[in-house]
């Protein structure tokens, strides 16, 4: 199928489970470039799995990575607690801490925080 005169797209319909533990499957229909279609077929062969299963696994993996990336962005932007970010990413608190460490996210403790803390320290007996 020609799209925009250059890109070949293949019509793929599959059902996706929102979460592994949820049994209800929704149907998603999308068109993909020929390259992705060929890659999916290759994975089907290598994994010896049905197309729908392959796509579910790939989607699940991509969504997991997207959520982690977004969670780390939330932390970097100072828009969530570590635990909120962990929940968003669907991982444990400690796993999120590891991911933040691996991503080199600073704790965002700045000189102004230090100045505030020093003021508080002065009040300590």
């Amino acid at each position, binding site marked *: 199928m020609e799209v925009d005169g250059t890109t070949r797209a293949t019509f793929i319909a599959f059902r996706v489970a929102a979460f592994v533990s949820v049994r209800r499957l929704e149907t998603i229909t999308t068109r993909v470039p020929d390259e992705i279609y060929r890659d999916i077929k290759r994975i089907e062969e290598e994994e010896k799995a049905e197309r729908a299963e392959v796509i579910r696994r790939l989607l699940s993996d991509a969504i997991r990575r997207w959520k982690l990336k977004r969670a780390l962005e939330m932390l970097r932007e100072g828009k969530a*607690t570590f635990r909120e970010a962990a929940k968003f990413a669907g991982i444990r608190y*400690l796993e999120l801490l590891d991911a933040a460490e691996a991503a*080199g996210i600073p*704790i965002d403790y700045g000189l102004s925080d230090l100045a505030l803390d020093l003021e*508080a320290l002065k009040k300590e007996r």
Partner: protein
Amino acid sequence: MAIPASVYRETVEDAKILRKVGISAIEDAVAEGWMEIVQLTVSEREIAKKLAESESIQIEDAEVLFLARKLSAKLITNDRWLVRISRSLNIEAIWTTTLILLAVRKKILNKDEGREALRSLLLAGLHIRSNVYDRIITTLQEL
């Protein structure tokens, strides 16, 4: 020092599940008696749950806030958002680096031990901008 049971679970018990190293420090602290695990009552958990809902935070964060308020204690964290919420609730929050400064100021740690504790934090994965770290070290020296 006190931590809610839920935080103990997510740090020590989850760490065991994840086979992470370094959890013995918390277990040792509890065994030595200077860290206490506090089990909130059902009614306290309800209050924490409402706090979690109103502040859009997780129950463990809310329990930490609740406990700090209940004990009139400082909340120690490296979580900027939690620090912000804590201060908005008039609960004093300090960062772990400040805890070290406080310990040196109170002569619980000497300056070398304070520097070593800061270094351990960095080695454990705490990322602090170099200019801030330098300033903390300078401050520690001047205490």
